[in-house]
């Protein structure tokens, strides 16, 4: 039982990070119909930007700020202007393929300029245990979970409770009408790219101390987050959150109770079941967008 509790906490902590990344997938899809297959590499890169800042002599806190700002510049602004905007004219599929190429490019660039070897990465959450309901739970798991949940709550509050969020939603749901009523659609789309870049940088900061900084570390994350987004509902932020948490827990429980060797297969089987029986995802809406 104690084991199950530990597994649930660890699964939720990993799942919360998947959720951050999956929310980014959903945001980009909703506002600009971009399926970003480089999303995993987007999580890998900020850690290296922060490491580069630390190697240049910056303290950790400054490296975090620089890493997040640079990520928003490169993975938000530059990504949209240099890749998404020019490719979007050719349709969704060429853009999706372009993001796959970008994923390879990012991995190779990090390998070339940094190293093919893994590097350690400091944790912003202190190590140690905390007692919850009579169980010793690691502070790191709790810290990751709390930070990720705060980020997700902040984002949902922004989307649902502010005028800016309403404008973003309007731009996503019907850009033509949104333009007519005076919503700056282009600026809203750019904003979602910047939010996505912020979320991946945060995910990078939280996951890299556990996964280590390595040029391939985005592969697993990108795949897990993509599955999470589809399982939860690709057109709903709350779906991506639920999908992320679910996949995190499912992965851990599968490894513990099914088989370590087949752990990777269990989320895939779940994905197939969702696609067959509820293609819009667990919390998605079938009618919201037609492609």
């Amino acid at each position, binding site marked *: 039982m104690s*084991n199950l509790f*530990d*597994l649930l906490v*660890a*699964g939720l902590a*990993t799942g919360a990070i998947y959720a951050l990344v999956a929310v980014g997938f959903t945001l980009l899809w909703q506002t600009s119909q971009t399926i970003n297959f480089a999303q995993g590499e987007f999580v890998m890169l900020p850690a290296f930007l922060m490491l580069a800042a630390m190697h240049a002599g910056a303290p950790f806190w400054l490296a975090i700020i620089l890493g997040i700002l640079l990520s928003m510049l490169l993975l938000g602004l530059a990504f949209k202007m240099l890749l998404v905007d020019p490719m979007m004219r050719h349709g969704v599929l060429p853009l999706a393929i372009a993001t796959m190429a970008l994923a390879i490019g990012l991995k190779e660039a990090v*390998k070339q300029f940094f*190293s*093919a*070897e*893994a*590097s*350690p990465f400091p944790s912003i959450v202190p*190590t140690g*245990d905390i007692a919850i309901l009579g169980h*010793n739970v*690691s502070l*790191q*798991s709790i810290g990751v979970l709390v930070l990720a949940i705060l980020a997700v709550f902040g984002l949902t509050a922004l989307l649902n409770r502010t005028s800016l969020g309403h404008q973003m939603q309007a731009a996503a749901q019907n850009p033509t009408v949104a333009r007519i009523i005076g919503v700056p659609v282009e600026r809203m789309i750019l904003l979602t790219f910047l939010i996505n870049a912020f979320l991946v940088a945060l995910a990078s900061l939280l996951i890299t*101390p*556990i*996964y*280590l900084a*390595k040029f*391939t*570390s985005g592969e*697993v994350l990108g795949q897990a987050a993509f599955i999470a987004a589809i399982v939860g509902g690709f057109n709903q932020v709350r779906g991506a959150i639920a999908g992320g948490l679910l996949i995190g827990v499912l*992965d*851990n*429980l*599968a*490894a*513990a109770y099914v088989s*370590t*060797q087949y*752990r*990777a297969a269990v989320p895939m089987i779940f994905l197939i079941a969702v696609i067959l029986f509820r293609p819009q995802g667990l919390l998605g809406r079938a009618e919201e967008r037609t492609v």
Partner: protein
Amino acid sequence: MKSTLLVGALLTAITTTGAFAQAIKLADVAELSGGGATVGTNWKNGIDLAIEEINAKGGVLGRKLEVTHADSQSNPGVARAQVQKALDAEPYVLLGPGYSGSVKVTAPLAAEAGIAQIMGGEAAELTQAGNKFLFRTSFGQQSSMPKVAKYIHDDMKAKSVAVVWVNNDFGRGGRDVVVKELDRLGSKVVADLSTEAGQADFAADVGKIKAANPDAVFVYLNEEESARILKELKRQGVTAPLMGETTLIGQKVIELAGDAANGARGHVGLTTDAPVDLIKTFRDKFAKKYNYVPDHNGLKGYLAVYMVKATTDKMGKVDSKAFADTLHGLTIKAADEPGILMDVTFSDTGDIDRQSFLVEVVEGKQVVKQVLPKVK
């Protein structure tokens, strides 16, 4: 007439001094990217350092050494293609790969070509297939695992043991030998956990170890995964003593795992912290050239090149066909060839006999607790 004589004399001088003698070509295939990048990069740097030293002292029998490095991407399929390509260029000796799985699929190619292969793999089965051209640079699992099991049983006094291993040729080979030995000695294996190469999340595996509540945990994974599981073991508060092999307490693992590596113990065939002067000198030279302290793979690459030198010096000629026969049964003494670092004897199967060490990580440093002498 006078000038013709002069040119003739000059040509004779050039060809006989060996200054322009053809270089001896070595081929290296290593894990320069992918999961084994730590292994391959250390191995490659060790090779380059040894070659630089040897060439600076005039080469081998007056001929310079040259090496080409190819990347196996830590993938046995790619390793096989790269080895085939390397063999097509007819090297004197083939160096690498480091991963047992890659050695297993490439060894038949080198044997067929009649080229000696000096590699870094440690899986027991590699030298048990009757291959007459394959040589180790470190202990095989059949030599190291019995020592590990004995230490767990006798020194750690563990009656129950959790065994975590990576599901590839290297991990399976080690797991099979250690489980058999633990069973023979009377220590019960209470958790037998297979993990995947490149695995990032060890929460569930460590959860299983916690549930089994063993007296000791034997961890047998590759370097990066070792670092991740050490962090997770610490995160979940597992206090049972940890025992492993070189891959648990290597320099890279200590760097990646940080505090979590403290207290981990391992049997090490080669370590840069060994209380051996020649190894200390090697460590300093390596650190000066590459700005980091090598792990045992750096030593292996370095030794591989000095094995080539010592064997060739023994033959007195550069003969790739006779190389393997000469190295079988050869004892190389560090007093005669300092580059070999410690006295070593090669068996007829290509296995080695050399002294080894029991090491513990104390405050981020490898500390040698015991020196185990050469068997013969």
